[in-house]
């Protein structure tokens, strides 16, 4: 990590200014509070009677315009901007194309405004309805905005400017003595519009911890960056950067930025705050007692536990969303209702991906594929990094290495496998390169401060960068992915967007200068964090267009922004092959899930460096539960395909990959849940156990859906591993079937063969236990249902099935079943939305095996209805692989169709003495 090459807060004037402001220094008051066009509006003006405060003299006196709107499902939106009617110097940038259009249709038309006396300060407050049980409130003097539970004594949930740190630098004309230029190392930022930053404090009530605001290689629960007992720390930085060899446990900004934070506390409640702003942002989490010396000024309520935060941005406007929860899942749902539902990936994309920088040529590809076959290890996608191109010109092939790319892809496709090639946003400045030719002729590049095409350095050398903020350029780009335009592409080829922060090797902080200019005269500083998002969007749209809108796109992106979840997967970038990076991958991926991006993963094995064999095996064992499961490696590293570490380790890696394939029906069901509700595939424990305090800062274990708990092993040669199993129900070891008590930390023996994973009592998990070359061949394979009974001998679960590739599920072409087990009877019922008509997708798949965990005494037979036939219940292995495993109660060959309504009733022999012989089966 080249620390010196990146700015810290002190070297970033807006951050330094904001951080040095004192609580209570905001002198704005809310005036003219009223309802207008269904919104609550007000003007923020400087307080008149404050001659004693000399700071005020320098403040611009123009009023700011504040607008509060309420949306369905507990979302409050608050905007603060300069007053356009007063002719500001420039329209400040608001990020387009992020807010879901459907969300805007859910606006509530506010009707009435209540005035109340403020409990704090002298003035009054204005109260408006927000949602069932919640109200939006403006305190006039000093100005504060908050959400509270309904009623005069309603508890505060979320507030802005309670600490009086709000500051809004309005655009102004340059004055004689102003020196607006900023220098960092050899780079000069001309800053033609001068200071324009915004900062404010946000408080989360009833909160023990706050989470979110990726991307940082740090803990899940965000540690305070200021306050008593906190060593000096940088704020959490949100600035998309290509960081070489990033370090763990750092608030430093990485590849993507999502200015969305959630809180969670003992009460079991969560709330959330999202600032839609694409400029550089810095966020402080303020430790308890940080503002003690100002308590008399602030008069904050002391009866509520609170986490204060300070948000600072270099430019843009205030466009903030408050989410009321009340549960963590509600907050995530509310957030994704604003920024969009996560796309449902194709089934293949949920399976295992094999990548390396670089699979060098067609022969290499063939050999790697052949080795997977030889070892009977499934994989779905083989990836090609930058070296496959002709001189790093994307959409081209190095024909010496890849003379027949179509044939190569077809060979893989014949086994149901896909290929991914890399396409980055830097375009080689080479007159003979058609993309460059067109882009420069049409003026499609980002411009430098002087108006010329920006010329930076990246893989191909001298490069320019497409201005993806412009919708015309995006649609031009999308056309490049058609089979005719992308020569050598086939329908089984998908795309990887790397370097889209954007990475500019010779730019300030390895990115684009802030004074570069985009479409509509927007400065790069105003939209930097969204650049990669637009590139991702344009690429994904290209793949949709390519397939006539019938094939779901798959695009992996390194940079991200709110809304990226609509376009594909992200990964945590260039990590390193060490144990700490294995550990930090979990909080990083969990954080992405909490902030709307469920389809995320870390490079299995670690990108830089050579993992020793144990680390690699552990990484596979953990990575098999990442929502995005891809092995990747730097080109200087040794080869590390699964079969290179001796038979025993090959077996372990194979087993890890098999676990993933076995659970594909479960994962896919979770991806559909994420698609429908925003709730992530992998979840912090507290999302499933919101009232269990012991889970709040646990980021070594995580939930896959609501049914599986996974505990990573993050140390070398671990003998034991401690696992906290939350809740009051039991947990079943997924390898052995052994039951463990909930609410207890168990010290278990660490096995080399696997990491601990448990099925929660009361759940039913759908599996496919047959292994194939790839997920493609599993389509018709039968299901296994694993029922883990809770203390009332009941359980439930679901499975979602569709064609795995098209968009027809949106028209109802899917199967969605609910399984419930109670009183000795398992029932499958339809969960599919009746509105869409249902039954548009058929499956011939049957259920071949039902496993019952936690049932005693043991039944001998079960009755399947309809059909009224009896099937055997006997002891069988919990997992088929790995020789003779422990035996568990198994309903043998019920062979009911997965799509049908049916029930299976078990007969406990001691209760039902059946004289009829066990029917013989064909």
């Amino acid at each position, binding site marked *: 990590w080249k620390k010196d090459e990146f700015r810290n807060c002190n070297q970033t004037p807006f951050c330094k200014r904001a951080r040095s402001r004192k609580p209570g220094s905001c002198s704005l008051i809310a005036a003219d509070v009223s309802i207008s066009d269904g919104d609550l509006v007000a003007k923020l003006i400087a307080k008149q009677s404050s001659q004693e405060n000399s700071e005020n003299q320098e403040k611009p006196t123009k009023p700011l315009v504040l607008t509060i709107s309420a949306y369905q499902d507990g979302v409050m939106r608050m905007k603060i901007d300069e007053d356009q009617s007063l002719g500001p110097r420039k329209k400040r940038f608001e990020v387009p194309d992020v807010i879901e259009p459907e969300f805007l249709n859910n606006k509530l038309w506010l009707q009435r405004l209540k005035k109340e006396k403020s409990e704090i300060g002298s003035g009054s407050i204005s109260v408006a309805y927000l949602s069932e049980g919640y109200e939006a409130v403006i305190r006039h003097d000093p100005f504060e905005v908050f959400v509270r539970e309904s009623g005069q004594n309603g508890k505060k949930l979320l507030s802005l400017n309670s600490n009086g740190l709000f500051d809004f630098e309005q655009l102004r004309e340059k004055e004689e003595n102003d020196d607006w230029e900023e220098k960092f190392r*050899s780079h000069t930022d001309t800053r033609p519009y001068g200071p324009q930053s915004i900062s404010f404090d946000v408080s989360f009530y009833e909160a023990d911890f706050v989470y979110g605001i990726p991307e940082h290689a740090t803990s899940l629960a965000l540690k305070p960056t200021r306050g008593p007992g906190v060593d000096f720390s940088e704020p959490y930085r949100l600035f998309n950067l290509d960081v070489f060899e990033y370090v763990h446990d750092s608030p430093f900004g990485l590849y993507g930025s999502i200015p969305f934070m959630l809180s969670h506390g003992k009460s079991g409640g969560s709330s959330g705050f999202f600032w839609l702003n694409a400029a550089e942002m810095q966020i402080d989490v303020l430790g308890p007692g940080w503002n003690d010396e100002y308590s008399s000024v602030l008069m904050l309520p002391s009866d509520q536990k609170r986490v204060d935060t300070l948000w600072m941005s270099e430019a843009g406007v205030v466009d903030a969303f408050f989410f009321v929860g009340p549960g963590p899942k509600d907050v995530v749902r509310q957030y994704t209702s604003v920024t969009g539902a996560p796309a449902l990936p194709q089934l293949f994309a949920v399976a295992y991906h094999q990548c390396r920088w670089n699979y060098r040529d067609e022969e290499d590809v063939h050999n790697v594929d052949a080795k997977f076959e030889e070892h009977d290890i499934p994989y779905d996608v083989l990836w090609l990094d930058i070296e496959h191109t002709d001189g790093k010109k994307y959409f081209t092939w190095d024909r010496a290495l890849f003379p027949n790319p179509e044939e190569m892809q077809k060979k893989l496709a014949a086994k149901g496998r896909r290929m991914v090639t890399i396409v980055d946003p830097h375009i080689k400045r080479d007159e003979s390169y058609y993309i460059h030719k067109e882009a420069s002729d049409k003026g499609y590049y980002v411009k430098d401060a002087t108006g010329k095409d920006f010329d930076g*350095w990246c893989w191909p050398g001298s490069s320019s960068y497409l201005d993806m903020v412009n919708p015309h350029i995006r649609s031009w780009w999308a056309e490049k992915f058609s089979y005719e335009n992308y020569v050598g592409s086939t329908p089984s080829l998908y795309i990887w967007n790397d370097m889209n922060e954007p990475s500019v*090797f010779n730019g300030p902080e390895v990115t684009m200068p802030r004074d570069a200019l985009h479409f509509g005269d927007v400065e790069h500083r105003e939209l930097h964090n969204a650049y990669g998002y637009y590139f991702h969007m344009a690429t994904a749209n290209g793949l949709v267009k390519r397939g006539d809108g019938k094939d779901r796109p798959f695009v992996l992106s390194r940079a991200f922004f709110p809304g990226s979840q609509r376009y594909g997967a992200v990964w945590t970038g260039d990590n390193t092959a060490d144990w700490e990076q294995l550990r930090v991958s979990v909080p990083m991926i969990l954080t992405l899930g909490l902030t709307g991006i469920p389809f995320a993963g870390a490079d299995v094995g670690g990108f830089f460096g050579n993992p020793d064999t144990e680390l690699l095996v552990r990484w596979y064992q953990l990575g098999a539960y990442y929502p995005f499961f891809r092995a990747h490696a730097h*080109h200087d590293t*040794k080869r590390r395909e699964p079969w290179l570490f001796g038979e025993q380790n090959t077996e372990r890696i194979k087993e890890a990959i098999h676990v993933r394939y076995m659970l594909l029906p479960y994962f896919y069901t979770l991806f559909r849940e994420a698609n429908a509700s925003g709730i992530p595939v992998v979840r912090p424990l507290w999302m499933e156990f919101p009232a269990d305090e012991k889970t709040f800062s646990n980021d070594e274990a995580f939930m896959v859906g609501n049914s599986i708990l996974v505990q990573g092993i993050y140390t070398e040669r671990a003998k034991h591993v401690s696992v906290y199993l939350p809740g009051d129900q039991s947990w079943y070891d997924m390898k052995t079937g052994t039951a463990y008590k909930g609410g207890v930390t168990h010290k278990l023996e660490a096995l080399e063969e696997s990491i601990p994973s448990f099925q929660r009592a009361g759940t039913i998990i759908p599996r496919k236990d*047959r*292994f194939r070359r790839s997920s493609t061949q599993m389509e018709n394979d039968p299901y296994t249902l694993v029922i883990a009974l809770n203390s009332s001998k009941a359980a439930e679960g679901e499975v979602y099935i569709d064609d795995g590739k098209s968009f027809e599920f949106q028209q109802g072409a899917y199967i969605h079943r609910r399984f419930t087990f109670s009183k000795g009877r398992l029932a499958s019922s339809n969960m599919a939305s009746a509105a869409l008509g249902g039954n548009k997708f058929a499956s011939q798949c049957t259920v071949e095996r039902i496993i019952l965990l936690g049932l005693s005494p043991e039944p001998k037979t079960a009755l399947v209805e309809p059909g009224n036939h009896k099937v055997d219940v006997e002891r069988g292995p919990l997992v088929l692989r790995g*020789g003779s495993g422990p035996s568990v109660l198994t309903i043998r060959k019920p062979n009911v169709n997965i799509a049908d309504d049916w029930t299976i009733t078990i007969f406990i022999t001691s209760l039902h003495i059946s004289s009829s012989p066990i029917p013989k*089966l064909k």
Partner: protein
Amino acid sequence: TEFFVGVSPEDESYYKGLASSTAIKCKDGSKKFNKSQFNDDFCDCPDGSDEPGTSACPTGKFYCKNSGHAPVVLFSSRVNDGICDCCDGSDEYDGKTKCPNTCWESGKAAREKLRKKIATYEEGVTIRRQEIEKARLTMSKEEAELQKLKDEENILKGLVDKLKETKEEEIKAKDIQPTQKDIHDNIGAEDQPPQDSAENNHESASKPELGVHSIEDRLSNDGAAGDQDGSAQNAEQLGEDSTSGGNAGLDTGNQDENVAEDTESLSKEELGRLVASRWTGGKTDEHKEEFDASQSKDHQDPTETPNEASYEEDVGYISDDDDPRYDDDDAGNEDHVDDFDGVDHYDSSSSQRPESDDELDFSDITGTSGSSWLEKIQQRVKNIFQAVNFFQKPVNVSEAAQVRKEYDESSGKLSKIQSRISSLTQKLKQDFGPEKEFYSFYGQCFESKQNKYVYKVCPFKQATQEEGYSTTRLGSWEKFDESYRVMQFLNGDKCWNGPDRSLKVRLRCGLKNELTDVDEPSRCEYLAFLATPALCVEDKLKELQEKLESLNKDQPKGPHDEL
């Protein structure tokens, strides 16, 4: 046959047990299964023995007969997966996928291939036998020669010592005759064994202070030039120089730091290249860098060059240029394919050639003419001594000169003999394989051109990669590995951001020595293939012949559908 879907002939008797008894044990003995559970698409046996014909057990194995071709055992994951794996199509029987029976065609092709391979082996086995015989003869010759040389060395050494003694006495006796300086020079020279003095010359010649200077100069230039904003090309040149300078071994470890201090003064392009190089490991400059590194290595380690040179002298006596075994017009060279499923198609050229060293002339000390030269010397020396003894002192000037001349000649011969002895000893202690089948590799190099690189593999010595004038050492000879199927070269030039380079050469049967398919599967770890008659072993030939026989046995059945 429906009943025995997926069952291998060896297992038929095991499953026949199902007909007679109600249930039989799984092969691993863990459970029992009955007839209705056999191939019923539900896994009862953990080892998969109840489901040879379905995909129900993950550990199961499916046997397809492939009449007309070779039988195959598949992973159960391939059964009814929509992909035709057996040429008889028997793995896809669920009706969802139609698999044509291609066994006859592919069997024919396979048999043809196998036949060709056998032909190669047959010829290869003969060549190999000849090689071994030749190696045996040559080696015993060399051993005899070595013994003879050692004897001669003894005699000659005695003579030389005697001559030296005499000469020194002469000088003492002559007292004032030569100038002080001459005495000094002579004694100085004569006190040293001759080969050492030669090495000294080498050493001083190859210790170019200049080299070190030039690196330092370059470095200091960089410092000065860093502030300038030169043209792009200039800057590029500087960037490369500074990288290679840093890599020249002076300050490799601190390269990053140096560079970090510098970045502010770099031009935009230099900065871009520098940052890119963090990920690529300076890949764009790699070759230049390697070239420089190897040069500087020579500068730093002056002993290496002379060693190398003397090695080349040592092996120089061999010349296989006109060896008839490696006739390039060899008609059989089309088919040096080793793999049964052969995917060997090389577009690379490959050649072998002996080291083109300047041969030392051993004609006067070797050859069948035997020791006549030694006898002559002995006679002459005897004569001299007789004369010297006769006259005692004072010594005749012409006789003294003769002693000196005789001494020079004899000690020269002695050093030649000694160097020949050492080279022969060096050679004969190598591991040439259990049957000395790799004897002929000694002193040979095999070349293959792949794209812009020429790979050169010299067994028992080293392997290199050449690009233009730049040479990268891929490794020094280490040993044979994997029962003489692999040649290992280790400790090659250091990689910028990886391990020391190394090369594995996989050997396979071919009619002539031919290097192919050089590859770098992992960074700086190279892999190549060498076809050679040395690998055409009889056992393997027998195995292939048996395989062909068993394939031919199935032939008469002709194509028919197992379904």
